C-alpha cells in the first residue's frame, strides 16, 4: 500500500480499484470514532475519509484547486453535527490548530461532546449559526470558516459569520444544499443565485458540484480580502 501526499497538506490518498480513497493521519492512535477503515503503515495510523459522508472530502476528490486548510490553523465549523468531518479537520490542523465546532441541535452536540473529550484540539458549541452574536464571546477570529447547514438562508448566514470571525486572507468553504433553499427550482439555478450573493462581498476562488457523492450539492471556496 502506498500513500502519497497530494496538494492538500496532511491529506493522503491512495488509488484503489474503485477510485481514489482519502486518508488522514489519526491524531489519537488506537481510537476509532465512526466505523471508518483504519490503516497502519510504518508505525503511523491513518483513518479513511469517506467522500459520501463528508462534503469536504467529496470536494477534494472532485478536484478543488485549494481549500486553504493548513496545520496549525484555527477553524470555525458551522453545522458540525455528529462530528464526522470535524474529526478529519482535527487530524489536518493537528495539535497546534484549534476547531470551534458549532451545531444547533442538542441531540447531535451530545455525540460531538464525546468526540471532543477525546481530542483536545476541538471544542463543541451549542448555538444558532444565524445569530453570531450569541456565541461571539465563546470563540476567537479564525483562519477558516467551514459551513454545512441545511438552511434556507445559507448564503446570508455564511457571509454574516465570515464578516464577523474570518481573518483577512482567510478562506471560507460553503457547502450549498440546493434542496433546502428551494425544492422546486433546478439546482444549477440555485447555485447561480448563491454565487451572485457571495460575489457582492467576497472573492470566489473555486466552485465544484459534488455529484455523484452528494446529490444537488455544491461547494464554494472563497477568500476574504
Amino acid at each position, binding site marked *: 500500500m502506498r500513500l502519497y501526499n497530494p496538494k492538500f497538506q496532511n491529506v493522503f490518498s491512495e488509488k484503489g480499484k474503485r477510485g481514489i480513497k482519502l486518508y488522514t493521519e489519526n491524531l489519537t492512535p488506537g481510537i476509532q470514532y465512526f466505523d471508518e477503515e483504519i490503516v497502519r503503515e510504518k508505525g503511523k495510523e491513518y483513518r479513511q475519509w469517506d467522500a459520501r459522508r463528508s462534503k469536504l472530502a467529496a470536494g477534494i476528490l472532485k478536484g478543488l484547486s485549494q481549500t486553504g486548510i493548513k496545520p496549525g490553523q484555527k477553524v470555525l465549523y458551522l453545522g458540525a453535527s455528529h462530528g464526522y468531518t470535524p474529526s478529519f479537520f482535527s487530524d489536518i490542523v493537528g495539535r497546534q490548530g484549534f476547531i470551534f465546532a458549532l451545531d444547533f441541535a*442538542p441531540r447531535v*452536540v*451530545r455525540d460531538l*461532546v464525546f468526540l471532543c473529550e477525546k481530542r483536545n484540539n476541538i471544542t463543541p458549541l451549542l448555538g444558532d449559526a444565524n445569530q453570531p452574536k450569541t456565541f461571539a*464571546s*465563546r470563540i*476567537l477570529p479564525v483562519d477558516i470558516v467551514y459551513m454545512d447547514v441545511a438552511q434556507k438562508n445559507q448564503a446570508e448566514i455564511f457571509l454574516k459569520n465570515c464578516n464577523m470571525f474570518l481573518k483577512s486572507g482567510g478562506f471560507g468553504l460553503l457547502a450549498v444544499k440546493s434542496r433546502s433553499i428551494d*425544492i422546486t427550482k433546478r439546482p444549477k439555478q440555485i447555485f447561480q443565485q448563491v454565487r451572485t450573493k457571495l460575489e457582492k462581498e467576497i472573492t470566489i476562488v473555486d466552485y465544484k458540484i459534488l455529484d455523484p457523492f452528494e446529490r444537488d450539492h455544491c461547494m464554494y471556496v472563497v477568500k476574504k480580502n
Partner: protein
Amino acid sequence: MYLYSNIIGTFVFNQNMQIREKILFSKSDLKNNYKKFQENELLNSEEKLLKKFKKIRNLRTDPDEKLLSKVFLVMSEYDKEFYENNLYVTKLQIKDSITQDLLIVQTIGSVNELKKSINLLSKRLREWYSYVLPEVEEILYDHFSFAERIAVDSPEKLMKDFKLKITMGREFSKEDLAAIKNLASTILDLFDEKQEKEDYLEKLMEKTCPNLTEVAGFLTGAKLMAIAGSLRKMVMMPASTIQLLGAEKALFMHMIKGTKSPKHGIIIEHPLIQRVDRKDKGKASRALADKISIAVKIDFFKGEFLGDKLRKQVEDRFR
C-alpha cells in the same frame, strides 16, 4: 483602559493593550454566567472591575474592530481554557435543553413501536397456532382475546368451548405447545406495557400542555408534537403547517410535480374530523389546526386555560 470579557474570563487592558488585571472564570462562575453571555447582560466580574477602574470602556458591549483585533492576539495564548470552558458550558446547555415535552415525544414513540411489535408478533402467533387449531384463528378476530385464550387454555378446552368436532390441526407435544404459549404471554405483557404507557402519556400531556390536550386529545396532540420535534418547534409553526404535519410526502410531491395538495396530515385522526362529511374535511382540519396552534402557544407561554372555549368554537362550526 479597556474591559473585555469572554468565556474564559474578564480582562482589563491598558492603553498599550497589555493585560493589567484579569479574572479567570472557575466552573461555578461559568454556571452562573453563561446565560448572561447570550442575552448580553452585565457579568458580576465586569461590574466589579467597572467599579474599581473609573475611566474604562467595555469592549464587549461597545466594540471597536481595531482594538478587538489586538485583544484577540493576546487571547490566542488561552487555547486550553477555551477548550475546557466551552466543553463545560456546552454540557450545561445540553442539560438545559432536556425539557418535559421531550418526554412526551419519547413516550408516544414507544407507544407507536409497541403497537407495531404487537401486530408483528400477533401475526406470527396466529400462523404458528394454526398448526394446532386453525378454526380458532378464524373465530377470534381480536389480537388481545386471541392471545389471552391461547396463553391460558389448552387446545382441548378451546375445542369444547367453540363446539368444534374435527380440526385440521395436528396434536402437539407439551414442549412444542409451551413454546407457543410463551409467545402468547409475551404479547399479553406488551399489551399491558402499551396501556401503561398510554396512561402515563395522558397524565404527562395534561400536566405540560393542558390546552393542547383539551383541543386535540392526548394521543393526536402527542403525535403532532412528535412529528414537529418539540413543543418549542411546534409553537413556531404556522397553523397551516400543523394542519399538514404527517403529510410531508404528499406536500412535496405537490410542490415538485404538481399533484393535488394534501388537506390534512395526522390531524385526520381527531374524532371531530372523522365525524364531518367528506367534502368538509379540509375545512374542518383547517379550523382545528388553527385552534391547535393557538392552544400550543398558550401552553408554551404558560397562559390561562382556554382549551374548552377553543374546542367549543370548532365544534359549533361543524355540527
